[in-house]
């Protein structure tokens, strides 16, 4: 779908302003105090009415986005009295819930350390946000770099509220993560002198972004997934269930995590897994569409692990802060919210309003950039409205060719050219229409450096955990986080499984949860975890429980055509 005719005039203004912009140079950087005012007024994290205090659980009283609060305070999908926990279907050392980069690497390391492993995957094995990661993985392995320099970048980026022990782990493990993935067969980009090809990224003071073209996460995930399959075929104790997410965790009477109840998404049948350790690696929550934002996230990113861990008694940290990527596609509707990599701006593209004017430097921090776009569209009314009612600003990619020479875009951004080309938009000649999109959960389940949580035997790794990135994650540190804490969780869980003394399985925590919910007047809450979003265009049938959930905060009417 090429741009509709009525956008021509705005596009012409963009094209006509290029030479003047080139002469004038970039828009000035925003002063610190102005930045604060801008973010406080326009960033979604500061929209007070979109948050509420939690009324039950370990984070009672904490300010939380409405959509997430509803899920955390959801009702269980099971009735504890009716589940026969003694009929165990799988009995393993380590249960891994979720299988992206974190779950996959946790499973591999747990198995290597002597544990029998079962993976519960909601969709196919390895279908996760990991696959969509384009830019790369940070690792402080060049001679002019060090874990200490990396540490400082992470702390500054996260506004200094990160957990120092976790930041140390992230920086220190990073070179070994790159080495480990290569030993499994990941093809990193290399320079002619055999060193890694490493680029800089926003907020990083050294070049340390390792990449596999612009398919970094895909390459990492398909290798890890293949390794899991191969070990299984060799008869090693690693197995998985696809389309069977966990719907509740099981404790034992000694207060230790002891397994989970899984649900077959197709038959709705229940599977009981008994485990000596449980690793939560369910990823993020983009598909909850906080504040009605589109998302860059995978279909399965519905905060399930947060809900399960919270109900078991594990505290969360920094759940009031989300990352909104400033350049999600606003057009065409088929790719609404699709991630347009930050690299487009580092190469020289500028952000413009409907009159072809700059209103923010293109390389401000993500929260600042996103806030300025929201101000331009919502307050100043200078956005461009699409036929489906979205609004966006221009990301003027052709400027890259003017600044860096013809052919730069095709060489540096092949995936972007392919994606927009599928809809007859040639980004070498035309700008992209963009708007902030829900990208990453900065906080999550609180962990220690060995990925253990406050609940004995429960571990968490990847986007579902929090404290590593503070209130803002840097580019390239998410895929790093997956493998650093995935591997640590796998090792620690295998060790715990050897040492722990198992007790009798119980669901008393669910009964207790229901009691607390009742006392807090929350009886009528919908069930959680959410499992899948519901984009089916059908009026809900009263009394019929659909598989996915309809958020009360996004009206039903426009869902089917709005979300990709």
């Amino acid at each position, binding site marked *: *779908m090429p741009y509709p005719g009525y956008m021509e005039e705005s596009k012409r203004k963009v094209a006509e302003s290029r030479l003047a912009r080139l002469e004038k140079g970039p828009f000035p950087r925003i002063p610190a105090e102005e930045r604060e005012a801008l973010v406080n007024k326009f960033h979604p994290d500061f929209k007070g009415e979109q948050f509420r205090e939690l009324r039950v659980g370990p984070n009672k009283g904490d300010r939380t986005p409405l959509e997430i609060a509803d899920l955390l305070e959801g009702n269980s999908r099971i009735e504890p009295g009716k589940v026969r926990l003694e009929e165990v279907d799988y009995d393993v050392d380590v249960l891994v819930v979720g299988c992206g980069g974190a779950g996959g690497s946790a499973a591999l390391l747990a198995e290597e350390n002597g544990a029998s492993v079962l993976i519960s995957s909601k*969709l196919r094995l390895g*279908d996760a946000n990991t696959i*969509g990661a384009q830019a790369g993985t940070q690792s*402080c*392995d*060049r001679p002019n770099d*060090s*874990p200490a320099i990396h540490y*400082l*970048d992470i*702390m*500054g980026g996260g506004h200094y509220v990160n957990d*120092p*022990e976790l930041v*140390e782990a992230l*920086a220190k493990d990073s*070179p*070994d993560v790159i*080495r480990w993935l*290569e*030993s*499994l*067969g990941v*093809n*990193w980009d*290399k320079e002619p002198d*055999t*060193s*890694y090809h490493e680029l800089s990224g926003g907020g990083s*003071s050294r*070049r340390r972004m390792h990449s*596999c073209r612009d*398919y970094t996460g*895909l*390459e990492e995930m398909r*290798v890890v997934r*293949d390794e899991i*399959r*191969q070990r299984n*075929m*060799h008869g090693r104790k690693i197995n998985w269930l696809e389309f069977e997410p966990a719907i509740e965790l099981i404790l034992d009477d000694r207060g230790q995590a002891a397994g989970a109840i899984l649900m077959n998404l197709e038959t709705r049948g229940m599977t009981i897994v008994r485990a000596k350790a449980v690793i939560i690696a369910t990823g993020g929550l983009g598909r909850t569409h906080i504040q009605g934002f589109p998302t*860059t996230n995978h279909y399965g990113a519905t905060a399930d692990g947060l809900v399960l861990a919270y109900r078991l008694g594990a505290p969360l940290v920094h759940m009031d802060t989300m990352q909104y990527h400033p350049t999600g596609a606003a057009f065409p509707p*088929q790719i609404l919210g*699709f*991630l347009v990599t930050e690299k487009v701006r580092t190469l020289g593209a500028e952000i413009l309003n409907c009159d072809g004017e700059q209103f923010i430097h293109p390389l401000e921090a993500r929260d600042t950039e996103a806030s300025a776009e929201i101000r331009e569209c919502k307050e100043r009314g200078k956005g461009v409205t699409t*036929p*489906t009612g979205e609004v966006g600003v221009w990301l003027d990619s052709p400027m890259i060719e003017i600044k860096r020479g013809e052919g730069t875009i095709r060489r540096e951004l092949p995936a972007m050219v*392919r994606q927009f080309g*599928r809809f007859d938009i040639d980004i070498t000649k035309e700008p992209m229409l963009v708007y902030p999109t829900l990208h990453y959960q900065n906080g999550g389940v609180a962990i220690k450096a060995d990925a253990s949580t406050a609940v004995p035997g429960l571990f968490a790794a990847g986007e579902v955990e929090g404290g590593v990135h503070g209130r803002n994650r840097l580019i390239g540190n998410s895929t790093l986080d997956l493998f650093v804490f995935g591997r640590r969780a796998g090792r620690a869980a295998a060790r715990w499984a050897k040492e722990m003394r198992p007790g009798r399985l119980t669901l008393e925590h669910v009964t207790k949860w229901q009691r607390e919910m009742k006392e807090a007047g929350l009886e009528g809450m919908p069930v959680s975890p959410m499992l*899948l979003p519901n*984009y*089916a*265009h*059908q009026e809900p049938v009263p009394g019929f429980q*659909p598989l996915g959930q309809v958020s009360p905060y996004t009206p039903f*009417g426009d869902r*089917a*055509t709005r979300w*990709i």
Partner: protein
Amino acid sequence: MAEVAEKVQLLDIYVMGKRFQVPEGLTIQAALEYCGYNLIRGVGCRSGFCGACATVYCFRNDSQLRYALACQKAIEQDMYLTQIPFFPTAEALYNVQDLKPEAGENKLVQLYPDTLTCFGCNNCTKSCPQDLEVMEIMSAAIRGDYEKVYEKSFDCLLCGLCAARCPQGLQPYVVAIAGRRLRGAHLAPKSQHNLDRVREIEEGNFDAELEKLKKMSTDELRELYAKREIEPAQ
């Protein structure tokens, strides 16, 4: 939705034989959801990166099968849609550490001897939603040209459509991942600076500095952060 529907033209599509009218411009995936399906299988990243939604379709009066990612392909008038079934994978058994090829040794043909039965019909290439030259990947595998297997197959999403359409029952995407892993683990040149840094960290070379940083107050960190030297982008 009402006012949008008035502006947008409705197209006829057929989902597993049943006719629906859906607004022009939707992807195959969104069209299925518009028709009331709450998808479980055949849906993933919804951004064209994961291969979960690889699909086969044809038109009402044209039985020629066509191939696409359902999250990327916009619907057209009279499309016949289905969700493709699950394809089982039959990988050869290998240990990536043992894949290192001796000179002239063709590990891929050893793992997948059937690869030699490829007779070049090119159905695999025609079925690839990423527009990869799949048959050339198979030719490279037969020649033992691991570098070319890596180069040509790098954008593979492992959707499995090539295997579904191979009349010889070959699985090009599975051959390709073995080739890429072999290349990454054994043939790519080692990056010594990384191995050196791993060793330095193991030896505890940075521990004192990190301990100091971990004990610093926010103000001290902030000052250090503001003064840090930033290497220019390349």
